[in-house]
């Protein structure tokens, strides 16, 4: 009797996992089935159009790459600096403890709230307008908590003996961090950065909130240019009643997923290298 209950429970639990995996499978099959026929070179290189068969994704792809590159340039130095402070300098101070709690809380704030922050501060107060720069600043704030957390983990894997050896040779604290600790932690830091960026590149709500455009017939040509991104373009197509636009949305999702997959592959490659490098 006890054994049977145990078996039922085991089947139930395994069934849950199978259900989750089946959903992922259904999602992929559905998107590929709808979008693969529409996905060709013309689609990737064409601009937005009112006619679904002429419409392409180039402007949104370019917009996504602009925004995400700028986000990386902002989030990497800020996130690493904050993590170095928390991990190497201020570990015991009250201010550091307060900042830590604050970062943990920020990581759980809904992304659309960051959109309202970006709208209030970057778009209006700082007068950036609805530009690539305003979008990247918003996404950088959104990505920072994750970058900081993963950087701290990477810094923690650097053995203490490395630091002590450096101090013994007369190096200062900053020299030790800059020349020894950071280079060793770099692959881990980059992995975390890429993973947080791959989340940011799928973000839609905060960019809609700061007023990124949903219809734009050109690719951005600088940081002050108005822009749209892949997820917003997909959202725009999904919301239209014509079936042909839904096909476009599915094809757009395939482009977005390909971009995500590429970024994740780079992250996995770096993680792999990192592990091999740190093996004694």
């Amino acid at each position: 009797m006890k054994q049977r209950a145990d078996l039922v429970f085991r089947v139930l639990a395994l069934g849950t996992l199978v259900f989750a995996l089946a959903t992922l499978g259904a999602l992929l099959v559905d998107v590929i089935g709808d979008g693969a026929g529409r996905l060709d070179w013309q689609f990737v290189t064409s601009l937005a159009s009112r006619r679904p068969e002429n419409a392409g994704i180039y402007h949104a792809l370019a917009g996504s790459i602009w925004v995400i590159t700028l986000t990386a340039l902002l989030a990497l130095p800020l996130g690493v600096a904050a993590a170095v402070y928390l991990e190497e300098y201020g570990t015991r101070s009250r201010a550091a403890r307060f900042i830590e709690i604050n970062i943990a809380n920020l990581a759980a704030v809904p992304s659309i709230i960051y959109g309202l922050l970006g709208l209030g501060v970057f778009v209006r107060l700082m007068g950036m307008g609805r530009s690539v720069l305003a979008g990247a600043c918003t996404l950088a704030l959104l990505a920072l908590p994750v970058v900081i957390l993963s950087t701290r983990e990477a810094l923690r894997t650097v053995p203490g003996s490395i630091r002590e050896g450096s101090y013994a040779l007369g190096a200062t604290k900053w020299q030790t961090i800059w020349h020894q600790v950071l280079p060793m932690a770099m692959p881990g830091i980059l992995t975390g950065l890429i993973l947080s960026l791959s989340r940011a590149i799928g973000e839609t709500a905060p960019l809609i909130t700061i007023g990124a455009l949903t219809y734009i017939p050109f690719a951005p040509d600088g940081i002050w240019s108005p822009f749209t991104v892949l997820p917003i373009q997909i959202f725009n197509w999904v919301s239209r009643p014509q079936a042909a636009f839904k096909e476009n949305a599915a094809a757009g999702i395939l482009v977005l997923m390909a971009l995500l997959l590429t970024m994740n592959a780079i992250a996995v490659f770096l993680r792999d290298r990192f592990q091999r490098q740190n093996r004694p």
Partner: protein
Amino acid sequence: MRTRRLEWVIERALFVCAALSVLTTAGIVMVLAVETVGFLREVSIGEFLFGTQWTPLFANPRFGVLPLVAGTVLVSLIAMVVALPMGLLSAIYLSEYAPEGLRRVVKPILEVLAGVPTVVYGFFALLFVTPLLQRVIPGMAGFNALSPGIVMGIMILPLVSSLAEDAMRAVPRGLREGAYALGATRMQTSLQVVVPAAFSGITAAFILAVSRAVGETMIVAIAAGQQPRLTANPLVPLETMTAYIVQVSLGDTPQGTLEYRTIFAVGMLLFLMTFGLNLVSTWLRERFREEYS
């Protein structure tokens, strides 16, 4: 002497970067508060919090936020019905049953499930799950709460699963061995020893999941419709707080107007709700950590 000053400058500069996060929180509170105060000058707080009609874009505007809150609660509830039991089950399986090889296959797949952009889930809810459900439930509208709720639950499942699994893995081995020594089966050990021992950690995971559901935007903006409606019926179109913010942001409501300020007032409410949930979750997790350290 010069290096020492440089060291000092660098430490200060790093501190400023770390303090930026505090500035972010302050910025969120300031932006939301300023606009919300402007909003509440024209609409009484009683009408906002307890009014049952939300029609700010109509000629005769009403500003009762309850329909939006009800929409958010209904969708989140459906998501939790999916995510909590399934997340807990898969956590128990991964932590107590699964062989190491299976764990190594399943965990990355769950990570992929968590990493799919929400706009993709919205597409999936509207164009796959809704038509599927309509075949089973004939009266169901094309926009509804049920389909995005279920899909959101699947999206949140990996979060629940991985946090609950972490909590259960932190339970000391001795407790399990004690239970086995008394003749308990694996299921009895899991459900009557490990889960109760990890209770505050699991609860923290659940609360964080609720917070995620409340703040989730794109799935509901795509698949739940844009009709604020005070209802518990999951088969009709409704609107959540987040979907309303998206709706106004997409339109061309001029800034500085009362209609425009509504998104900050709704945002403030959303922020306070999720912030409260996050605080409780953090507190529970801290308590759990203290129990086993």
